């Protein structure tokens, strides 16, 4: 859980002992758990083919939001399918039957695609880390300072909070993600952090900025945050 968020916001998971596997999931488990033989090889081949199909579809779906293109994108899909396959086989005993087997398996390949696109971002990044393109903030926040006097004041207050009230670490991450538009997974890779660690920084920054805007009278709803 991201620190600073409610301690009651805990994900409850079903008791696996109460779960009965559907027939297809049970069949996959049986075939992949068999001790060697042609049957297991066939099952692994079928699973890998499905993972690759999903990976190729996923990189295609995300192609508009990544600088990774062409053969490199295809390579990402193949690597994601291969790594997902290894992870699935290694964690097969940990499948708890809380979902269908294939949904559980596809999660691995989707997350592999996310992570790999984040790492490959830095091979040809459209923006460098630390660029600090503050002139793009109005576009980022979809606020036109020319439209209303208050819009300009809001943007100025956002920048003031970022520069004066955030820590150096928070400011670096907020500027990279929100101002410069670097994908969160790419930044996580670059800084050697988990996605959740970056998200928590942005979460805290959002809360701090919102409080400042409420204090200045730009936003008047107390919002959902806890004191």
């Amino acid at each position, binding site marked *: 859980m*991201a620190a600073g968020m409610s301690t009651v*916001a805990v*994900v409850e998971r079903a008791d696996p002992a109460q779960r009965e596997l559907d027939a297809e999931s049970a069949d996959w488990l049986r075939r992949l758990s068999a001790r060697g033989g042609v049957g297991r090889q066939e099952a692994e081949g079928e699973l890998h083919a499905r993972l690759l199909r999903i990976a190729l579809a996923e990189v295609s779906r995300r192609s508009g939001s990544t600088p990774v293109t062409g053969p490199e994108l295809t390579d990402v899909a193949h690597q994601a399918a291969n790594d997902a396959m290894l992870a699935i086989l290694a964690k097969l005993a940990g499948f708890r039957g809380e*979902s269908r087997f294939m949904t559980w398996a596809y999660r691995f390949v989707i997350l592999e695609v996310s992570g790999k696109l984040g790492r490959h971002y830095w091979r040809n990044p459209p923006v460098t880390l630390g660029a600090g393109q503050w002139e793009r903030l109005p576009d980022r*926040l979809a606020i036109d300072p020319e439209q209303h006097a208050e*819009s300009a004041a809001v943007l100025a207050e956002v920048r003031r909070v970022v520069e004066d009230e955030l820590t150096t670490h928070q400011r670096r991450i907020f500027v990279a993600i929100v101002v410069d538009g670097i994908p969160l997974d790419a930044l996580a890779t670059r800084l050697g952090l988990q996605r*959740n660690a970056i998200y928590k920084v942005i979460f805290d920054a959002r809360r701090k900025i919102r409080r400042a805007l409420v204090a200045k009278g730009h936003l008047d709803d107390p919002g959902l945050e806890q004191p």
Partner: protein
Amino acid sequence: MSELERLDRFLRTDPRDVGCEEAMAVLHIYVDLTVTGGDAAEHYPGVAAHLMACGPCSEDFTGLLMAVSSD
């Protein structure tokens, strides 16, 4: 929606938000509930709150949803 309303939506933080790690740990369960017509958000309000706020996790949710729907 006005500019300030959009900004407010971006800045609002939900105390139920479980964060990326918890959300991704149950993503397969959440997606299965969604595709089988269950109320995933009611079962996992903290995950729903997170997916509303986190772009990367929302992308993963969409990707997994499309993957299972394509079978």
